[in-house]
């Protein structure tokens, strides 16, 4: 068990996320952290996870981590490839996607996401890449899982820009905005797992990863973080989980 005793917080995050996915789920995968976690799940317990990338590849089965959402191997291993209009209009918009799996630069307590700018929109201090598929993945997937590393820079009290709506300003907002999916059901970070409170929709820390202090999570959050009454500790990575993630990463080199 030495392997399992030494792992990075990024590895823990990917493994915790991978565990949320299961066979035959239809999963719309953002590039970066989500793609890594989904491909990890496919190597572990969910070989029949159905991965959808916004490039139009349906059921891609890459053997290594793709650098972009349109890598050749995604196309070559897909069950079929559809056009980009079809991905968004025929698959995402009507709610055929079980899980939208997103990263972001910033998140607020209602799981709204920013991947557009830091600072003023018209004169940003940092211009980020922007929306891509995220706003509609967030609004139309049946459920959304978000992954991002936790810090006061990323977990902020007020977003400078809402790229993708989580729960808006709280209960009832998704319905008011006509957003069809249930929204973010889970935010997985390098420190723990947050889930929306069923009444207030505010994110609550429900799981903490092994060897992480609650204070560390609180300090890494830009708002007064609520902690679940029954805070659980994430199960440590198993040797086979760590094996799988390390061979996945090295195959991607």
């Amino acid at each position, binding site marked *: 068990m030495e392997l399992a005793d030494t792992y990075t917080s990024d590895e823990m995050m990917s493994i915790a996320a991978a565990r949320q996915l299961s066979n035959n789920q239809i999963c719309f995968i953002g590039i970066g952290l989500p793609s890594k976690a989904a491909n990890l799940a496919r190597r572990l317990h969910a070989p029949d996870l159905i991965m959808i990338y916004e490039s139009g590849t349906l059921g891609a089965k890459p053997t290594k981590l793709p650098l972009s959402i349109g890598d050749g191997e995604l196309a070559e291993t897909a069950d079929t490839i559809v056009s980009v209009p079809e991905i968004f209009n025929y698959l995402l918009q009507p709610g055929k996607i079980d899980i939208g799996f997103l990263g972001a630069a910033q998140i607020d307590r209602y799981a709204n996401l920013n991947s557009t700018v830091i600072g003023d929109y018209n004169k940003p201090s940092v211009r980020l890449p922007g*929306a891509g598929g995220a706003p509609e993945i967030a609004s139309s997937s049946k459920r959304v899982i978000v992954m991002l590393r936790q810090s006061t820079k990323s977990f902020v009290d007020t977003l400078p820009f809402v790229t993708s709506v989580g729960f808006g300003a709280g209960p009832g907002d998704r319905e008011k905005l006509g957003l069809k999916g249930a929204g973010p059901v889970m935010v997985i970070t390098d420190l723990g797992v947050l889930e929306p409170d069923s009444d207030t929709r505010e994110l609550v820390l429900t799981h903490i990863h092994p060897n992480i202090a609650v204070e560390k999570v609180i300090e890494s959050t830009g708002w007064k973080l609520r902690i679940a009454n029954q805070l659980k500790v994430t199960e440590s990575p198993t040797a086979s989980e760590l094996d799988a993630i390390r061979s996945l990463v090295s195959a991607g080199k």
Partner: protein
Amino acid sequence: MAEIVSLQEGIGSLLKNGDTVALEGFTHLIPMSAGHEIIRQRFEELTVVRLTPDLISDQLIGSGCVKKLVFSWGGNPGVGSLHRFRDAVEHGWPHPLEIDEHSHAGLTNRFVAGASGLPFAVMRGYRGTGLDMFTATVAPITCPFTGEELRAVAAINPDLSVIHAQRADRNGNVQLWGITGVQKEAVLAGRKSLVTVEEIVEELDPRPGDVIIPTWLITAVAVSPGGSRPSYAAGYYQRDNDFYIAWDTISRDRETFLSWMKDNVL
């Protein structure tokens, strides 16, 4: 019927300063060589439309060709920032860049509307996001049957749409396969269109998953082998992921960028 031209002629005769030009290709089949030709011919004041402005857009912006960018995701896929794009937005170098920013779904539907000869398309999207507030090409629309409020996105009909494809025949019929993105819609939406191809062949033997664009929907076809590098052309060459990573360094600094462009493009 499409005319077979050189890349130089194609860009030179179909584009003019101030035009709106779409350069499409979703990760795959990006029309890089056409973008380089635009830079070499020193076009100015262009409105560039592209879902995923990546290296070619970074080069166009850094070279001063672009007045306005219409886009939905401006990054170096899997690597990080587009530094020339950021420098233009954050610091106005080489000059300020106007933007009209959308989601992929939104910009895709703007092409769909353009291709369909409609002034707009309808979608679920934008509501509750900041995007909804910073673009004039999205507007509320109400379903006349259910009363539900949705969003209309304005059609886009570029003066010129440019794509890269694997092959054409001598009559100018074009064939592409693999990830085909919004390329068909871009060509159909364009008032004019230019397709660069890896090669011209005697006959377009059918391929699984191929998209055929008949010659009568295309203005011009130009042969440009390797025209997508460092992007890829399925069946011809692979994506040069190392170059995408290298671009991060090349593009980070204005001088390094300019000198690379001088050595490699101009």
